[in-house]
């Protein structure tokens, strides 16, 4: 981790950890405007991707710290939206901006003039849509090209993910977007924006998983049955190690993406999201098995993490979707050979458009 990434991680960990200790886990793991104001003041709601020292490592570190505490505030979303807007030269107004790229749906452009666009449609699964001042979304033109637009949500239907985090539908009825809030020729494509979202979910999940490792190791050492700690049974040890292994693999996949060559970034982000998809299930299954019935109740905080993992593994593209992407991009007639394909950098693989088109 870079020094700045470590600093951002530690400071967020401190703030949220202290709040969690004072007010309880639930106060952190549900919408908390007062804590949001604190984090906003500390700059976490507006980390500027244009700052030269701020890069992917820093955003991932923040996501991991948030995941560690099951923090139910849209820090990750604000960062993703800021990056999308900056890459398209859109200057966002003050207030919470969130991205609407978790699903692959887009708006339709139904009108265009010098003053901007008129867009129509619905955006599903918008994270924290009900709290957002601005939603960033792609809108498709008749000719198949896409614009990136920043719109003010007017009608929102509430929904949630498995952990109760807001995932809302934003209805857009022939809404006019002024030219300053539109980029008609964004270098950033939907695929790439979603890949970054997927990576940030994997980073957050790695943090959540590390917390679960702590919980599980502690419990297996403390809980006694048959006159001994359950961790002395090999069957339980196997589960605990599965929990730790899934956490390590997910984190390794995230870090590999952070360090990847830019021309292979989307490919490695996809691999990280697939890895999360594979590991989240076995991680949560084994953790719940160690905890027994108490882990499956609201009384124990295990669910704050496992319910998020069950949701995050699907957000910004399921394991299935990203696995298909990899299979689609990496199996091609001119391929130099499987091993060469899987061990970038390689120019023939880079030519498949699996890298950055805007700086991450």
């Amino acid at each position: 981790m870079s020094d700045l990434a470590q600093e951002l991680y530690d400071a967020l960990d401190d703030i949220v950890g202290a709040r969690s200790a004072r007010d309880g886990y639930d106060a952190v793991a549900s919408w908390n405007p007062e804590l949001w104001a604190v984090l906003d003041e500390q700059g976490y709601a507006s980390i500027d991707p244009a700052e030269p020292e701020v890069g992917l490592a820093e955003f991932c570190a923040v996501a991991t710290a948030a995941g560690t505490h099951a923090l139910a505030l849209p820090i990750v979303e604000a960062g993703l939206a800021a990056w999308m807007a900056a890459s398209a030269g859109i200057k966002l107004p003050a207030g919470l901006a969130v991205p609407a790229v978790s699903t692959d749906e887009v708006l339709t452009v139904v009108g265009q003039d010098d003053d901007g666009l008129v867009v129509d449609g619905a955006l599903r699964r918008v994270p924290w849509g009900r709290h957002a001042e601005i939603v960033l979304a792609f809108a498709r033109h008749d000719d198949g090209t896409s614009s990136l637009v920043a719109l003010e949500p007017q009608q929102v239907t509430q929904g949630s993910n498995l952990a109760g985090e807001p995932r809302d539908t934003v209805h857009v009825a022939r809404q006019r977007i002024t030219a300053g809030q539109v980029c008609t020729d964004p270098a950033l494509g939907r695929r790439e924006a979603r890949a970054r979202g997927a990576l940030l979910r994997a980073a957050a999940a790695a943090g959540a998983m590390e917390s679960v490792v702590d919980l599980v190791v502690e419990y297996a050492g403390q809980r006694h049955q048959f006159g001994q700690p359950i961790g002395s049974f090999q069957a339980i040890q196997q589960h605990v190690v599965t929990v730790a292994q899934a956490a390590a693999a997910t984190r390794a996949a995230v870090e590999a993406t952070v360090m990847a060559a830019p021309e292979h970034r989307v490919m490695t982000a996809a691999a990280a999201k697939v890895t999360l998809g594979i590991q989240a299930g076995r991680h949560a299954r084994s953790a719940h098995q160690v905890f027994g019935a108490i882990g499956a109740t609201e009384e124990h905080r295990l669910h704050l993490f496992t319910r998020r993992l069950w949701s995050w593994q699907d957000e910004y593209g399921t394991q299935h979707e990203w696995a298909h992407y990899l299979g689609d991009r990496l199996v091609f007639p001119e391929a130099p050979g499987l091993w060469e394909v899987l061990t970038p950098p390689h120019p023939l693989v880079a030519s498949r458009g699996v890298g950055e088109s805007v700086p991450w």
Partner: protein
Amino acid sequence: MRFTAEPLTPAELQLRDEVREFMAQERANGLSVGLGINAEADMDFSRRVAARGWVGMTIPKEHGGPGRTAVERFVVVEEMLAAGAPISAHWVGDRQTAQMFVRFGSEQHQREFLPRIVAGDVWFCLGMSEPDSGSDLASVRTRATRTEGGWLLNGQKVWTSGAQYCDYVITLCRTSPAEGRKHIGLSQLIVDLRAEGVTVSPIKLLNGFHHFNEVHFDNVFVPDSMVLGNEGDGWHQVTSELAHERSGPDRFLSVMPVLARLFEQLRTEEVPADVRTSLGRTFATYMTLRSMSLSIARALDRGETPAVEAALVKDLGTQFEQEAIEQLRTLVGGELDPGAPGLEGLLADAVITAPTFTLRGGTNEVLRTVVWKSLLRTRKESA
């Protein structure tokens, strides 16, 4: 446990390209493709690899070695395994024995053996497991007793890979009574496989390969000079090399040659969406495992001993290898004939040898106990 990513440097990538070129040439010359460290030994091939300076790479220059890094060795090894190269002749010497001599060997051992390992002129195997000692390695009963100028060795080893062609077997044995503590009183002896009283008999793998052996020692004389390091230091020596033994690309690349064959076939075809998805999932796991394995090589170069991380990766990697075989069976489809050429024969071989993946070098269950103990220890230390 952190697996910090640090991609290959330009110099390491250049080495990789050299190995790729070498392997392409070898294949063009008709080198047969096998499955990782299960591929049948080919001493001539091993000598050609040695001629390129790629055996015993991490032996320091002062001991007559190339003095390359663990990562450079990783680069060479992963390229060879991915290509299905028959590396098993030099494998044990390269991976473990060289390290043992560097760390624990006498000056004489270092002078005598290290340059020969580098030259591909001497082959080693490991005499660890016994009929009654598998996972519980410290319970070995092979015993050496004092005699004039050395030791008399008696006992039996099993699963000794390559003993039929190797020169020496590094033998873990008891040199003094356990007295209630089985980890003390063990030593490693460097035993000449051609010495009087040594009998090697084959144990055939399920694919008919002669890879494993039984080795019997009947009053074998081992001179004092062939005790590795200090007498009684055997357990420490064995466990200190686990990070080298368990973390390498051999723990997730055994099936790569099969998948690579399938890839060759598919890349020019119309591939259905579900097949692409299935392949993509496997690709992602290869990428992640490789990054973890590489990060362990980096840690070794920093002077760390990531034995627990290595156990974790070996467990994950070998489970994946077995799952990958199941996936390949689905993708290839149909009945498998072990005598079939190409992809089908290789896959048949993989199916038959797969049970060994999660056994050799420590069963996955034992590895997980190692990881569990470390997790508990770390937790107690931080509390």
